[in-house]
């Protein structure tokens, strides 16, 4: 143990004398924490879009049956997705897009109310892009999602109009048309009147034979038209989503981002430090001196892993504290945070010493650590169903034999109470520590 203590003190002294690395270790988590915190607390900015509404103000309200629809309401709906820059003409809208002051232009044509009211053609809005694929995608996504919401609202309005007509047909009432008011009898009353007339007619009356089919039709119409409203409602929103979460609590995406950021930092600090400090022993030719019985291989590897883990836990915890300033985290779970950070850090550090044991210098160790870590992150974040089943199974296996996924699950469970449980994730990490520890010992014998 004394040898480990001496080596730890030595490595800390070397770290302190490597200002660029130390600064990176301090600044990296701090900057990442602030960026993530700001991103999560403020939300994304809206794209600047030139906006031209060509509908004359006097025509902004359309009437469908007895229902009046204010089209400016849908304009407001769109404005939730964009930062509108009002322009006075199409030419100005196009010029704004061309010179880059807006990333797109949205034009509401003057005949939109007419097309909506006529219902025989689709109403449309025009969007002009500047040809930048990323910007186009951004605006497309924003506008299309809001248009879908506007369409859904409009569908409800149209459903209401159609419903009121069906009610009028079924039950009768007053109908206003072109400023004139009419009384409509309604199918139910018509059927009642017809049945009354039929019951008063002699059994052999030829009129009974003529009226009976009309009464039967009225009955069928009353019975079926009643369900027509429900059918229209279903057409307006043919599929609605009823959400159910299984397999425990799931983390909202923004809080999951916190877990990812902390785990990625944990991984980088551990892999770079553990592999780097061990590779440094080879690079300085001191490894052979140490291996001559001054330090056992297990103690040497343990010392490097411990140093990297302690630094990484400090970094991870500092990040959580930093992010916690912006995002409400459950501070009552701090002990669990530390447990998850320690488990993840030890597993990453053991992988780090396994990598450091097979290279001859610090640069190669750093490069190898980066080469290994980036694919691990991407693989661990591939969602189920996004790739072929066989490929996903292979990804799951690869993710299971490297610590990133398990560490992410541990941190997410500790910070966000997600599943699988912290205990399961820590058990997984413990197995990986054993496996990579064994590999590191083999690598050190080289």
């Amino acid at each position: 143990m004394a040898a480990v203590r001496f080596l730890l003190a030595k490595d800390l002294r070397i770290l302190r004398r490597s200002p660029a690395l130390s600064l990176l270790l301090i600044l990296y988590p701090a900057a990442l924490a602030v960026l993530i915190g700001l991103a999560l607390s403020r939300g994304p900015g809206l794209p600047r879009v030139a906006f031209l509404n060509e509908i004359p103000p006097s025509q902004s309200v359309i009437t469908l049956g007895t229902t009046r629809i204010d089209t400016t309401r849908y304009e407001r709906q769109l404005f939730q997705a964009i930062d509108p820059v009002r322009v006075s003409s199409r030419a100005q809208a196009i010029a704004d897009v061309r010179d880059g002051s807006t990333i797109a232009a949205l034009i509401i044509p003057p005949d939109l109310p007419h097309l909506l009211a006529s219902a025989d053609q689709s109403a449309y809005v025009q969007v002009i892009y500047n040809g930048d694929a990323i910007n186009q995608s951004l605006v497309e996504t924003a506008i299309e999602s809001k248009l879908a919401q506007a369409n859904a609202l409009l569908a409800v309005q149209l459903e209401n109009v159609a419903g009121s007509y069906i009610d009028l047909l079924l039950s009768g009432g007053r109908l206003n048309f072109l400023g004139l008011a009419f009384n409509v009898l309604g199918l139910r009353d018509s059927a009642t009147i017809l049945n009354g007339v039929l019951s008063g007619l002699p059994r052999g009356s030829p009129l009974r034979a003529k009226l009976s089919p009309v009464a039967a039709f009225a009955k069928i119409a009353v019975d079926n038209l009643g369900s027509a409203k429900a059918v229209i409602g279903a057409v307006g929103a043919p599929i609605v989503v009823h959400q159910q979460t299984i397999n425990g609590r799931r983390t909202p995406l923004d809080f999951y981002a916190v877990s990812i950021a902390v785990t990625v930092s944990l991984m980088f600090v551990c892999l770079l430090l553990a592999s780097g400090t061990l590779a440094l022993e080879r690079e300085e030719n001191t490894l052979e001196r140490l291996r001559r019985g001054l330090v056992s291989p297990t103690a040497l590897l343990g010392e490097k892993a411990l140093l990297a883990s302690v630094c990484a836990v400090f970094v991870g915890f500092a990040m959580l504290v930093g992010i916690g300033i912006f995002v409400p985290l459950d501070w009552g779970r701090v002990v669990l945070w530390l447990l998850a950070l320690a488990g993840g850090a030890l597993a990453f550090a053991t992988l780090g010493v396994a990598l450091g044991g097979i290279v001859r210098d610090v640069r190669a160790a750093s490069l190898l650590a980066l080469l290994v870590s980036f694919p691990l992150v991407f693989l661990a974040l591939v969602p189920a169903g996004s790739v072929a089943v066989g490929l996903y199974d292979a990804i799951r296996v690869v993710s299971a034999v490297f610590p990133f996924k398990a560490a992410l699950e541990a941190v997410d469970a500790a910070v966000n109470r997600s599943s699988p449980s912290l205990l399961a994730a820590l058990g997984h990490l413990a197995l990986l520590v054993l496996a990579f520890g064994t590999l590191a010992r083999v690598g050190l014998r080289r």
Partner: protein
Amino acid sequence: MLTPTLQARSLSKRFGDRVALRDVSFLLESGEILAVIGPNGAGKTTLLSLLAGAAKPTAGEVIAPPGERIGWVPQQTALYSKLSVLENLRLFARLERVADPDLAVAAMLEQTGLRERAGEQLGRLSGGNRQRVNIAIGLIAQPAVALLDEPSASLDPRQRERLWRFIAARAQAGTGIVFTTHDIAEAERYAARVLVLADGELLFSGSPADLRSHGSGDIESAFVSFLRERGH
């Protein structure tokens, strides 16, 4: 009377298909200075690594009296360049479990003439001074045997003279010394016995005078003649 401090018994080392050392045996007496010479790739560094315990032999064994330390000065400096001279010495004194590390460090700084530069980082020292620290670390635990792999390679003549004075003093105190060198004259000057290695085989073990008898000129010519005679 001199007593054996280190024995190499039928040492062999293979690296894959390549035989680096083949069946090498010798005995080192306490206080003896033994030079290992040979052409490049002869197996000199491999032999010292095996004696130091830094590598394991494929066959054979190294026998040292129990409890005795073996000091090792590798050919390439094995030091932490971000630490100072003092910190390097103190670290290895502690790792070697020296009874009084501070006293041992102070003595070593004095003997190697590095006291003035004790606070300087290794990375900022010249190659010669780094080598002096390298040697100091190898000998800081007062080992019974000191193994020095080309110890004078990067030293200037003055430093070299100081080094050999230091090594001679150690030998007089009873430390068995094994060193490798490409400088045959240096081997003749300081060693009591010479081992000649070529292609991993031990070809000669005897005094420098015996080796000189293999040629008519100086010892370097005799050494080359000897190797030629033996087909190397």
